[in-house]
């Protein structure tokens, strides 16, 4: 449906009036249309679907989500450490 892959913007340019760029997907660099992420700059990560960047990935939110996972269950560990097999 919407298999989107995160990639890092390496270059931004215009091609026939359309905002385009080179995006690196773990070593594979492809040309991607950046028309829908006007705020994204070189170094940013985006989700790319059928050659179009559909969103800029927000690092702060990503780190916050991961932190939430880390803290999951920490409260249980303190309240009743024995229930953890």
């Amino acid at each position, binding site marked *: 449906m919407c298999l989107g892959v995160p990639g890092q913007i390496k270059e931004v340019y215009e091609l026939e*009036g359309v905002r385009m760029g080179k995006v690196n997907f773990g070593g594979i660099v492809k040309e991607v249309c950046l028309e829908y992420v006007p705020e994204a700059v070189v170094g940013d990560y985006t989700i790319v679907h*059928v*050659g*179009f960047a*559909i969103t800029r990935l927000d690092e702060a939110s990503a780190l*916050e989500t991961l932190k939430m996972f880390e803290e*999951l269950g920490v409260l249980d560990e303190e309240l009743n450490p024995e229930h953890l097999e």
Partner: protein
Amino acid sequence: MKYLTEFRNNDLVQKLFHEIHQITTRPWAMMEVCGGQTHSIIRNGIDQLLPPEIELIHGPGCPVCVTPLETIDKALAIAAQPNVIFCSFGDMLRVPGSDHDLFAVKSQGGDIRIVYSPLDALKVARDNPDKQVVFFGIGFETTAPANAQALVVAKKQGLKNFSMLVSHVLVPPAIEALMQSPTCRVQAFLAAGHVCSVMGYWQYEPLAEKYHVPIVVTGFEPLDVLNGIYHAVLQLEASRHEVENAYSRAVQREGNLPAQKVMQEVFEVCDRKWRGIGMIPQSGWQLNAAYRDMDAAIRFQVGDIRTQESSICRSGDVLQGLIKPHQCPAFGKECTPSKPLGATMVSSEGACAAYYNYGRFIEHEQVAP
């Protein structure tokens, strides 16, 4: 931060499984809407590690699977015409029409080209001014912005030999149709993350309210899927029904405004038939009046198409979550990825393909302990 490996961290995955087991006290049935999520679940065995009380119903979010048979047959008729170059995403080529598929048309001399992006189809049109170049514009709200941009560029560049066979579908009306169906067992939805990257999630708030069903925007990596399930179970256990965003790095409430703006310029809402499910009102996008001259269904008078579904294929029941793929009598016998009866066995996002490719031939419990 690479946004991939971090969200496959095994320690955190174990922690989330543990938490989900802790908070689940009753049976819950939830639907992951997107075929990409279905494949992540089956490939990573997530459904088998969840508490037995939690059932994941696989949703209709597979664009290849729900594209109406009439549209497939129109594509076959257009692609077979001598002066046409027909461009499409790869997995559309093996979707069975009434009696053959695009691969068969290609083998009989049809000029059919697989493209990665609709912009590639524009290049084909520029390079072949004497040919009619048609792009097969299918997909959900995630793919629509790309097709819309290709049409805007084609119009700007005056590419008279370019047209698009459009069959876009929308998620919210499909959720509404599922909730109104008497056989619906879904108690919570894991919304399709990348559809929401484009459209935002404000459209789901009236649905959560009206049908008292939690809707959690969910991503695709193992941690993302578990995060969606975790928040859905938290709500179900507390009898809450809200829209929550469990994929905040890629989704904001209002979605991608530049993309929505271009789509509004090009598309208008219409009733759409979903293959295997039937007509869902206001559940599709078609080209509006300003772009009707680039509508391949009009440009190529392919007449009225008489469609003929396979009599034994039950992909409709699979798409509505009424049966699981391996419960279909034809699964793995008459119907395999190399000889698919229905689109759900063809598509890389179809539930039947997921079950076949990841070896889910019998119930988990019947596997030798």
